[in-house]
Every structure is written in structure tokens, then in C-alpha cells.
């Protein structure tokens, strides 16, 4: 079974997600980067589940929960971004600097 390449892909997705969060300036793109990390976690769980031949399928069940929670979170996130956009006409997180220190 190919284990290592899959885990490397997951780790790469994770790093890409972190990079995206740090570099992207649009709030929606930051949300997308977070989704990348969650998908990296999903790949990890599925791979480990298969690798360990878990009879209780715990990894796959965990993945289903993560997908559900991620959907809920994106819903909330988009609502907040929409609210911001209405009040400010921008979704650039560099401009959210009303409060510092």
C-alpha cells in the first residue's frame, strides 16, 4: 500500500494552508486556506484508517464529523465576512486595523 506519498501530500496541503493564511490578504481566501488544512486532516485520517485496517472505521467516522463541522464553520465565516463587507466595502484583512495593542 502506498502510505508515505499520501501522508506527504497531506503534509504539503497543511503547509500550503498555513502559508495561505499568512500571505493571503482577502478574508475569503484565508477561509479557503483553512479549508485546505482541514482537508489535509481528512486525508490523514483516511490514510491512517486504511493503513491500520481499523475494524471500527474510527478514522473515517472522524472525517465525516470534520466535514460537517467545516461546513458549519464556513457558513459562520461567510456571514461574518459579509457583515464586514457591508459595513466597510472591503474584505481585505490588512484594512481591519481599528484596534491595535
Amino acid at each position, binding site marked *: 500500500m502506498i502510505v508515505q506519498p499520501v501522508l506527504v501530500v497531506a503534509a504539503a496541503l497543511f503547509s500550503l494552508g498555513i502559508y495561505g493564511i499568512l500571505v493571503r490578504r482577502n478574508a475569503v481566501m484565508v477561509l479557503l486556506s*483553512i479549508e485546505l488544512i482541514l482537508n489535509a486532516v481528512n486525508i490523514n485520517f483516511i490514510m491512517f484508517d486504511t493503513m491500520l485496517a481499523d475494524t471500527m472505521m474510527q478514522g473515517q467516522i472522524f472525517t465525516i464529523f470534520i466535514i460537517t*463541522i467545516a461546513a458549519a*464553520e464556513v457558513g459562520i465565516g461567510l456571514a461574518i465576512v459579509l457583515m464586514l463587507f457591508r459595513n466597510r466595502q472591503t474584505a481585505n484583512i490588512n484594512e481591519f486595523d481599528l484596534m491595535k495593542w
Partner: protein
Amino acid sequence: MILDLILPRKSKYYVAAFALFGTLASLAPLVIQWASYTSPLYAFENSYVVDKFSIILKGLFILITYLTFLLSINFIESDKYYQGEYYYLLLSSLLGALVVSSSRDLLTIFIGIELASTPMFLLSGWKKGDRKSNEGAIKFFLLGVLSASLILYGFSLLYGLTGKLVFSEISTYLLSNALGDSPVLLLSSILVISGIGFKISVVPFHSWAPDTYEGAPLPVTAYLSVSSKATGFVALIVLLTKVFETSGQSWGVILAIISGATMTLGNLVALQQSNPVRLLAYSSISQAGFIIAPLAAAGITGNYQDGIFASVTYLIIYAFMNLGAFLSIHLFSNFAGSDNFYDWGGVAKHSPLAGVLTTVFFFSLAGIPPLGGWFAKFVVFRSLLSTGEIVGISLAIIGAVNAVIALVYYARISKVIWMDELKNPEQEKTFEFQNPLKVVGALTVLVTFISGVFPGIFSYLGEVSSIFFGN
């Protein structure tokens, strides 16, 4: 299983009363469980447990939420926003906190953490038209979701290493296969610590806290700084001592560094603040440093019982005095109509009662005997010094220096409200101290005093933490 599943209907005044009553009523099954307690009860293949540790924490969470509701009643009614959703979201968050304190497997604890924090994203952006509230909400949301995904990545590595999800099975597996110092385990514990670090706002991960606290409605801020934080601490304590107990040496050092940095930075920045909410935000950051210090020392020595006792005691006392501090800020900023506490000169003369309350809470936060905060600090220092390790002693020294620094800004508020000149002595505005707020004040002050004067009531917590660790 005591789950407070109350769905408030959308009828204006009944909602608040119903939520208050429901929260209080959900204490009753807890009391029954406590009275008829014999041994820990397990459900769902050991993934959910009811032991004394979880019963105490559930009681704490329910009381905090009850006090938050009392704080919110007048606040929410004075706004033109919806009421039903507000109570519903807070109750969902409470449910999450209750799940966290009982869960003993990775999936359940993750869902608990998410359930506790997701409604808070919405509540912190409650004031839809207010740009500060929007900004606080987006900062909180982005970092909150990032932290959840870090925790998840840590969990997935742990699952890959052991193939188990239930805590007891994981730690048995790690012990029997001598995987205690595996690098994967270390990486996973670092990811989990940094993920939960966002929730409890310790130093490298604290940047969202002051902004969100300032933007959110005040009762929500009080809830965030107390219950939300406590949920994070409970998750951290449970995960570190039940799952990562074999690698205590390594996470102990990480936590010790975080703790020292948190205490110092939180305090130094708090000295500069003129907005009382931001001041309390930084003060609660530095208090978080005090709460994790005994845990760090416990990780290094392996004497978890003592560390957990000190952390949980501090957490309980901190919860009540911090809620009280938010109450007094709420009162004065409404009265003075200013977000800068230097403008509050002499406000205590308009209402000596509120002035005394404020002084009590702020002195308690500073740790002056005979108030509760003193006993909390005493327990933490005792636990740190009794380790005899260099890490414990140096943390105690950092803590002692910080306790002195903290006194400066806590005492400054008391000085301003009592001794400074009245700003406009002709002011005709009456001081509003509504009845629900009086109840909050009375309850929090009661706990603050009792825990300081009769610290004996906490001694049974020692027995509780031994049960927690013994199974």
C-alpha cells in the same frame, strides 16, 4: 448525562426568564449525581465519563452562564437586536463546555470544543452595525478556526500513531509500546498545545483577545474571558494528563516557557491601557499564565495531582472574580459614558456600593488577602515551590514579580474611582444598578470572600483530582 438542551422560544420577556430558570434547573440533576456518587460512570465505550471532576466543572460552567444571563438581561433589552438567538447561542456554548468536561475521547472532546467556541464567533459580532464588533469577530473567527484545524492535525497524527481514539486506550497503547518519546507524539502535543493556546489566549497566540473583547457586547466579553477560557483549560488539562502523560517532560518545558512569557507580557501591556475592557483582557491573559504554571511544573515532575488541584482552584476563583470585575466595569462605563477609565474620577461617590464592589474584585484579582484571589495565588505558588525543580522555582519567582506589577494597574482603577476629583459634580444622572446586576454582584462577592476566608472548602478538590487521575 446532564445536557442543558433548552430551546428558548421567541417571546420577548419569557425567553430570558425561561433561560435563567432552565440554567438553574439543570443544576438539580448535578446535585443529585453528586449526592448519589459512588464511582465514575462510563458511557459510550469509555468515551464519556461522569466523575467528581466533571461534576464540579459542570457546576462551574452552569453558574457562570447563569451569571452571564443576569448580566445580559438589561443589556439585551436596551438594544434593538433579537433576544431569542442570544440566549440560544449562549446555551449552545454552555452545552459544548459541559461536553468537554465529560468527554474522554478525541472525537467527543473536539466536538465539545467546537460547540463551545462556534456560537461565540457569532456572539462576538453581535453588534452588527458596529465596526469594532465586526473586526473583533473576524479576528476571533479566523484564529479560532485555525486553532481548531491545528488541534485536528495533532489528533490525526495521534490516531495514526496508535490507531485509537479513546484516551485510556491511547495511553495504554503508548505505554505498552514504549512510544513515550516518539517524535510524532511530541509534534502532536505541540500542535494540540498551540491549538488550545488560541482558545485560552496565552502569549504567542493571544493577539485576538483584546480586540475581540473590546468589540463584543460586555456580557459576551465576560463569558468569553471566563467560560470560554475555562473550557480551553479543561480540554488542555484532560488531554495533557490523560493522553500525553508519557511525554510530560517535553510539554512541561514548553508550557513553562509559555506560562512565564504570558504572565510577563500580559502584565506589561496591561500597564499601558486606558480602556478598562482592554485592561481586563490583558489582565486575563496574564492570569492564564498563572493557571498553566502549576500544570507545567506537574508535567516535569509527574506529580499531576497537585498541579491539577492548583490549576482548577485558581480557575474557579478566577471565574468569579473576573465576572465581578466585568460587572463593575459595566456599571461605571454606563454611568460615566466613557471608555477611558481616567474619565471615571470620583464615580464611586455616586454609588459607594458599586465602588466597594469594584475595589473588592480588583484587589482580589491582584491577590490581596483575605480575598479569594489571594488563596488562588497561594495554592499556585505552593504547588510550584513544592516541586523543588529549577523550572518550578523560576516560574514562582516570575509569578511573584508579576503579582507586584499587576497590583499597580488594579489599584490604579480603585484610586481613580475613589480619590480623583469628581468630573462634573453637578451631574444629575442617576446611577443605575438594576436588580439582576445586584444578584450578580452579591453572588460573585460572596464566592470571592468565602474562598479567601474559608479556603478549607477547596480541600476536597484535592481528593477529586486524585479520583480524576486515579482511574
